[in-house]
C-alpha cells in the first residue's frame, strides 16, 4: 500500500475504532461497578469494569490520534470513491482473488465442516480451491468459485429453513450422497475445462492427488491414530468404521 492509500485506510480504520471503543465503553458502563457480585466483596478496584474501561479509554485515544494523523495527511479526501458502481462491476484482479479465497474459507468453516463428513467436506474445499490458484486460469477460477458459491447458497437455505436437519433425521446421508456425487463431478468437469495443455494437466493431477490424499490421511491419523473425533462424521467416517468392524468383532 502506498502512503496515500494507507492514510485513506487509516481514516476509515480510525472511525471504525472510535466507534468500537465507544461501544466498549458504553457496554462496560453496564457492568457492576461497586455492587457485590458472585459473593465477592466489591470496591472500585475489584469491579470487572476496571480493565475494559482502561482498554476502551486508551483505544479511544489511540484511534483519535490515528484519525487526526490521517486527516492531517489528507486521508479523508477521495476516500468515498472505493464503492463506485464502476469498480463494483469490474473489480480488480486483486479483489477477485481475495474474494474467492474468502468464499472458500467461509464456505468450508461455516458450512462444510460443521455439517458434512470431514474428509468429504475437506475434499470439496481443497480440490477446487487449490486447482483454481495452481492452474491459475481466470475462467477456471470463476467457474469453480461459482460452483462453491451455488453450493453454499443452497446449503445455507436448506440449513436455515430447517430442511437439512429434518432430512438428515430420517436419512443420515440424505445430503452427503449428492455431495459425494458432486465431489466426483467437479474434477471431471475441471478436467474438461483444462483441455490438453500438458502443464495444466499435470497440475490438475497433482492437485487431485493432494486433495484426495491429505483429507484421508488427516482423517485416519486423527481419528484412529490420535483418537480425535471429527467435527462431523458421516459417509467416509462410517465407511471406515464399517471396514474396521469387518475385521474386528467387538464384545468377543
Amino acid at each position, binding site marked *: 500500500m502506498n502512503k496515500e492509500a494507507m492514510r485513506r485506510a487509516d481514516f476509515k480504520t480510525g472511525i471504525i475504532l472510535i466507534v468500537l471503543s465507544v461501544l*466498549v465503553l458504553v457496554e462496560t458502563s453496564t457492568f*457492576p461497578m461497586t455492587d457485590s457480585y458472585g459473593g465477592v466483596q466489591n470496591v472500585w478496584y475489584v469491579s470487572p469494569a476496571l480493565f*475494559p474501561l482502561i482498554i476502551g479509554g486508551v483505544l479511544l485515544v489511540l484511534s483519535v490520534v490515528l484519525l487526526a494523523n490521517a486527516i492531517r495527511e489528507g486521508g479523508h479526501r477521495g476516500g468515498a470513491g472505493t464503492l463506485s458502481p464502476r469498480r463494483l462491476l469490474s473489480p480488480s484482479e486483486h479483489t477477485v482473488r481475495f474474494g474467492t479465497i474468502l468464499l472458500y474459507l467461509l464456505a468450508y468453516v461455516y458450512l462444510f465442516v460443521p455439517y458434512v463428513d470431514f474428509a468429504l467436506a475437506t475434499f470439496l474445499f481443497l480440490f477446487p480451491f487449490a486447482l483454481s490458484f*495452481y492452474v491459475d486460469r481466470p475462467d477456471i477460477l470463476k467457474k469453480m468459485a461459482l460452483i462453491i458459491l451455488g453450493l453454499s447458497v443452497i446449503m445455507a437455505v436448506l440449513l436455515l429453513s430447517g430442511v437439512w436437519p429434518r432430512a438428515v433425521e430420517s436419512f443420515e446421508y440424505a445430503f452427503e450422497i449428492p455431495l459425494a456425487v458432486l465431489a466426483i463431478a467437479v474434477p471431471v468437469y475441471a478436467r474438461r475445462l483444462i483441455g490438453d495443455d500438458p502443464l495444466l494437466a499435470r497440475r490438475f493431477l497433482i492437485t487431485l492427488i493432494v486433495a484426495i490424499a491429505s483429507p484421508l490421511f488427516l482423517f485416519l491419523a486423527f481419528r484412529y491414530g490420535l483418537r480425535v*473425533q471429527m467435527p462431523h462424521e458421516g459417509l467416509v467416517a462410517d465407511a471406515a468404521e464399517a471396514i474396521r468392524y469387518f475385521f474386528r468383532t467387538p464384545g468377543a
Partner: protein
Amino acid sequence: MYVIDQFTSFGLSLYATLISPVNILVLVGATLLGIIFGALPGLTATLGVALLTTLTYGVPTETALIALLSMYVGAVYGGSYASILINIPGTAASAATALDGYPLALKGEAGKALGLTTTASFLGTMFGMVVLVLLSPLIIDLALQFTSFEFFLLAFFGILISGTLSSRDLVYKGWIAGFIGLFMSTVGRDRLQFFPRFTFDISELDAGLEVVPVLLGAFGIPQIIKVLVNRQPLARPKEFARILPEWGTIARNAKHIVRSASIGVGIGSVPGIGEDIAGWVSYGVARNTSKHPETFGTGEVAGVVSSETANNACIGGALIPLITLGIPGSPPAAMLLGALMLHNVTPGPMIEFEHPGFILELTAILLLASLAMWGLGITLAKQVVKVLKLPAQVFMPVIAVLCVIGSYSLGLNVFNLYLMIAVGIVAYFLTEMEYPISPLVIGVILGPMADENLRRALMVSEGSFAPLFQRPVCLLLLVVIVLTVMSQIPACKRAKERLTDRVLGRKPRNASMDVD
C-alpha cells in the same frame, strides 16, 4: 557433595533408561512425532501432550513419561520450522522466531536458520535441565515470592515488550493492535467475580476466546491469503550440502544464548505462563539491549537464537514448580500433570519420598529427548526445507485445512473454527495496513493475567499500591519495566549516550545532529 551425589544417581538413571530398546524406540518416535506436531501449523505442544496422555494410559509409567516429555521437547522445537519456512508459527512458542526466521528464509538462508534453531533449542533444553537438577529448591523459593502484584507486573512487562514490536508505518499501530488483543481477552466470564463481559448471551463466548484459534487465525490466515492473492512463491532455499550446527555462529551468540536461556527458565518456573511468552520476552530483550535494534525483523540471527533458546529452556523451568509444588508452569506442563496423576504419580514436595529418584529420572529423559531432538533436527532439517519446493498454491490450502483441524482438536469445539476465520480476516486487513499482529496475540494471552492479578492484588492489599514498592521481586520488575520504557524514549536514549560519552571522556556530539 550434593552435586556429586546428584551426578552419580543421574548417571544410573540415564543408564537404566538407555538399556531398554523399547524406551529408545519410544524416545525417538515420540520426539519425531513431537517435531511433526510442532512443525505443522495448528498442532501445538499442548495438543500433542494431551493426545499422547490418552494413548499412553495403558503403558508403564516410565515409558509414558519418555513419550510425553519427548513429545513436549520435540513440539516446542518443531514450531520453529513453520515459523521460518512459511511465516506461520507452528506453535505460539515460536511466534517470535518468525520475525527474523522468515526474512532469513527469504534470503535463501532457511537451512542456516534451521541449523541454528536446532542447536539453540538443544542448548536451551540442556540449560533448563541443569537448572532443574541443581537449582530447583532456590527457584521454588523465588517462585513462592510471586503473589498477585508480581504476576501483574510480569504480565504488564510482557505487554510492554509487545508494544516495542512496532509497525513500520506508525509507531502506535503496534499499540492499537495490542489493545485490540487486550480487549479480546476481556470477552467471557471475568475470573474474579464470574461476571459475563461482552458475551451478548452467546454461551460459546462464556469461557472466553481460546488462544490457539486466535493465534492460528492471526498468523495463518493472513499469510495464506497473501501468498495466494499475490502469487508469492515460497521462500527459495539456496542449495546447500547439509545442515551444519554452525558452532561458530553459536559461539558468537553465546551471550544471547545464556541470557535467553535464563529468561526461559525464569518464565517457565513462574506458574501459569510458559513457552509462548518466553519466546517473546527473550526476543524483545535481545532487541532492546542490542546495539543495532534496527536489524531485528530483517533476518537477525540473534533474534532467532534468542527466541528458540528461551522457549526450549522454558521446559526445564516449567517442570520445576510442576514437580516440587504440583503447580504446572506452562499449558503443556498442565497436561503433563494430568498424565502423571493418571499413572499414580502426584507431583509435589513429597515426590522424592514417594517416588525416590523421580526428578533425576525426569532429567535423564529430558537429556535424552533433547539429544534425540538435536540428532533428528540436524538430519531432518534438510529434508524439511524441500517442502519449500512444493507449489505454494497447493500447499497453502492444505495449511488452511491444518489450521482448521488444529483449532478444533483441542476441546473439539466448532466455535473455535468460526473464531479462527473471523480473527484471520480481521488480521489480514490489519497486516495490509501494516499493523504488527504479534501484539494482538500477546494481548490475548496476557490480558486475563494482567486483569485478574491487578484487581486481586488490590483486593488483597485493600486498595493500596504500597506493596509494589515494598516487595523485593516487585521492585526488581519495576526497575526492569522503567528501563524498558526509557530505552524506547528517544530523549532518554540521547541522554544515556551523552552520559556514557562524558564518562568515557569523549567530546559530546553536536546536539543538533541528534534531532531526527
